[in-house]
């Protein structure tokens, strides 16, 4: 009796796990599958599961006039540069903020986290006006500044949390040894922070790469990122679902790989260090 209910519980558990995987993965699998389907098959109803795969959508995206390469390059530049600046400055500031003893530190933390949490819709409005005035619409600089508005506070806060976790004994030993504060930072603390720096960088890059709201407001023909290219296909009257699912696959796959590379530190990163 007990044995049977035990087995039943096992079966229920297996079914629930299968259901969880189906729920999580079907949309992604369906998108990737559809990107290899001929256009005539994609819009079949009921949906077709058997088809002869084609690369035509990917070939079309990277050839001809409307070339996706430019969007990929734009995305890599704005996400890459904003990540470099945010993580570079954020690492230095995080170390300083973690080691300094001063009054008003709580206010400083609160300010930093408030900037990170500011609603994008609210931030867009004054930035739009400023960029318009400074002729930064449709420029890399404008979009990089916009991405720094969330990536810089994120990097400062998260690197502070990572540095807070670093045991101080080694740094103290180096200080006793006569190392300057800069040497303690650059030769002792920094080499131990590789996981923290890599995690912060990857998350900053993903946030910027995935942004749509800032990009759709601030970019023009020359600076459109890949999410904008996807949205442009979507707003055409006859939607090219083959192209769209192919762009979607290109946007999603590298970020899923990057994200899973730092799975061990994801929970720390995404909770801003509140969960370890």
């Amino acid at each position, binding site marked *: 009796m007990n044995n049977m209910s035990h087995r039943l519980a096992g079966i229920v*558990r297996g079914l629930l796990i299968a259901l*969880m*995987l189906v729920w*999580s*993965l*079907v*949309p*992604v699998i*369906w998108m990737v599958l559809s990107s290899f389907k001929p256009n005539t098959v994609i819009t*079949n109803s009921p*949906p077709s599961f058997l088809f002869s795969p084609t690369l035509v959508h990917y070939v079309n995206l990277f050839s001809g006039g409307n070339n996706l390469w430019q969007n990929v390059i734009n995305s890599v530049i704005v996400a890459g540069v904003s990540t470099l600046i945010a993580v570079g*400055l954020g690492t*230095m500031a995080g170390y300083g*903020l973690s080691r*300094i003893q001063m009054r008003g530190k709580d206010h400083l*933390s*609160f300010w930093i*986290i*408030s*900037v990170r*949490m*500011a*609603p994008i*819709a*609210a*931030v867009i*409005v*004054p930035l739009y*006006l*400023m960029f318009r005035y400074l002729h930064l619409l449709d420029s890399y600089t404008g979009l990089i500044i916009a991405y*720094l508005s969330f990536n810089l506070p994120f990097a*400062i806060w998260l690197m502070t949390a990572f540095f807070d976790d670093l045991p101080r004994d*080694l740094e103290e*030993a*180096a200080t*006793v*040894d*006569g190392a300057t504060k800069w040497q303690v930072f650059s*030769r002792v603390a920094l080499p131990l922070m590789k996981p923290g720096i890599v995690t912060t960088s990857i998350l900053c890059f993903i946030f910027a*790469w*995935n*942004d*749509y*709201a800032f990009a759709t407001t601030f970019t023009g023909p020359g600076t459109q990122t890949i*999410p904008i290219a996807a*949205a442009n296909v979507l707003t055409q009257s006859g939607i090219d679902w083959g192209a*769209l699912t192919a762009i*979607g696959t290109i*946007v999603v796959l590298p*970020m899923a790989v*990057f*994200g899973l590379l730092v*799975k061990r530190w*994801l*929970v720390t990163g*995404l909770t*801003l260090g*509140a*969960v*370890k």
Partner: protein
Amino acid sequence: MADKAESLESTGPPQRESKQRVAPVGAPVHKPRRGFELAMMSPALFLLAAISFIPLFMMIWMSLSKVGLIGGLSFSFIGLENWRHLFGDPQIGSSWILSIIYFAATVGIELVLGTAMALLIHSMIRARNLVLSLVLIPMFIAPVIVGLLGRFLLNSGFGLYTWVLSVLGLYDGNILGSVGPALVAVIGMNVWEWSPLIALIVLAGLTAVPNDILEAAEVDGASYWRKLVSIVVPSILPILLVALLIRSMDAIRFFAIILITTNGGPADSTKIIPIRLYDIAFRFFNLGYAAAVGLTMLVFSIIIANIFVQVFKRRQATL
């Protein structure tokens, strides 16, 4: 590390070393010097100040002005006109009410579903890591692509989910085009993308559940539900609070899914406050009014950020 230890023994100049050793005893030497830390912090903080305070003051100023865009930027001071309008605007009021419904449903369902996912994954012995990785994938997907997938899967002509729902006899019609189902659909897309984050956070909390108490309960013949309610949930409550705060902040930050799927429609049934703001600013170009609406949103996120800092400090103190 080995290098450091070695240099500590061999190369340290003896006089200076002894001076440093004495330092903690002599009070004046121990006076904190913060020049280095401040120098490290200042570049980032100056930049952060520039990209936070300038837009903030700009927004306050805009909210007191009528902003003209045609023929160059122009500001004409109109005092509290925008604010007076804001508090009497029924559309803003209904958008806030809708936002609260959307927000409560999204975050509530995510907490329950994410916790369930975490419990399932936690109970696995084999393939646990692989399943976790697969389940986390939606979290990395750009919101605009989540919206695109929603439109693809829910397309009234050929969508996979439309077909499944109609075969199961659950719903037959244009989901994103109908009041009611459209709201459910955009909530579902958010839940799909962000439940994995809750699962990841709760999973970290489940390691803190006291095993000996669980075993004692097992011996006493406690049922699964009883153990869940009396032991597991109480011990993961603090971490659920962190999950709730993190998601609350992001639920109002991101609006790309709705922007790309329904853009607030049909009949304003998905027009939560960020979408309304975006409409006011970039469809009607009423930028002064949009700034006022934006400031009220900012108040909301600052309150949550404040709670987060308190919780963060308490967690650091206890851990």
